[in-house]
């Protein structure tokens, strides 16, 4: 099994193959990142429709920019940098102008996603999940994004800094605050 896994092409080589016209390479790449990127979009947008639009917009930019793609970092860093920029652009178009922190929706008072999970999922962790999501939605946009970029996209401190344009210490600080608030939400859940 290990040799077979080792032979799987990495993201960068898949993207390079797609740049060269290999659609099958894109299919593999898309399959690897579609779920995490979709969850990132769902957590960043107020509703499912906006999340789907954002998701499609990100991939559209990826495929349109394939000729200019040059691997300078992990593909995930590249992908989520595009996602970050798409989100900022989208919010600017919606009229939410200001600094990077103000570019995100202030959705602390409600669950940002109109989820439609299946009954099995609901049964498993409905209460914990709802509290955690609500706590995430109450986070400042920078903290929420830092959390999602690590938890969903698997990015490290430096890579999160690349995507968001922040320094490493800033990213760490955002994550510390985010973890503190999310842990508090879980504690409330346990207390409840």
């Amino acid at each position: 099994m290990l040799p077979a896994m080792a032979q799987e092409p990495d993201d960068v080589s898949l993207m390079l193959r797609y740049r060269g016209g290999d659609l099958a390479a894109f299919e593999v790449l898309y399959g690897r990142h579609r779920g995490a990127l979709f969850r990132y979009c769902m957590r960043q947008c107020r509703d499912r429709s906006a999340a789907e639009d954002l998701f499609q917009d990100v991939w559209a930019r990826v495929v349109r920019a394939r000729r200019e793609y040059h691997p300078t970092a992990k593909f995930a860093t590249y992908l989520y940098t595009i996602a970050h920029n798409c989100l900022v652009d989208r919010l600017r178009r919606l009229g939410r102008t200001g600094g990077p922190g103000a570019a995100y929706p202030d959705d602390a008072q409600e669950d940002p996603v109109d989820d439609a999970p299946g009954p099995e999922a609901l049964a498993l962790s409905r209460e914990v999940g709802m509290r955690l999501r609500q706590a995430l939605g109450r986070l400042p946009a920078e903290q929420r994004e830092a959390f999602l970029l690590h938890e969903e996209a698997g990015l490290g401190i430096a890579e999160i800094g690349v995507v968001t344009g922040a320094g490493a210490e800033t990213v760490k600080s955002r994550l510390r605050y985010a973890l503190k608030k999310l842990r508090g939400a879980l504690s409330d859940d346990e207390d409840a």
Partner: protein
Amino acid sequence: MTSPEDRELEDFLARRSRVTAAWRELPGEEPPPALDARVRALAAAELRPQERGRAAPLRWLRPAALAATLVLSISLVLRLDREAEPPAERLASGPVDVRVIPPQTAALPSAEPAAAPPAGVAVTGMRREERRQDMPLAVTELDAEMDESRVLEKPALPPLPAQVATAAGATAPALALDEDALGEIVAAIRARLGPAGATGLFAREKAATAERAAADAGPTAAEERLHAILALHDAGRADEATAALAAFARDFPGDRITSLIESLAE
């Protein structure tokens, strides 16, 4: 020394924190199939213009480049071939320019130019083979030794003096003179005529002057005929000079030049 927040961050980054565990227990949301289909269609559509925009031009670009190269090469070769071709051959590919000098007087109407040119016909643009078939042998041989580039220059020269042409064109026998013999005769003529003989750069002007003098002076004297012959020779019109010498020999049988001509004729 590390604070609880730092430790929590380290656990989080190592995916050991409670928050991470709770997050992973959330139901994983996936994009709906319709959204997947849209993205895949975008990716496929993005490749299709690449095939049309890049590969398609290459399909016609190569043959077009090859065709352009061939056209340029062929035109270059043809041009070089034309430039290397003797001037007479080049003229032969274009319209033939045949100038006919009236056999008797300048006032007579032009003779039939093409069928059988008499000895006095000056042919400037005829094929070499036609010239060899139609012209007297001696003239043809002389012509073969001529610098063909001079043939091109002939139209700029004055026509053969009427009297010379008349005499040479009437019944002059064919005269075979090689280049040396012609040169020797011309030298004798030049010696006889003295410094007035046409030479060098002024040959054309001399030939024109001789023509005008001949036209004005009435019956042609031997010296005037020799002047004209010399002018023709110096103007590079050796075949016409040879024909004129033949006519001179016929008209002036006792002349020293005639004797020289007869002695050198082949």
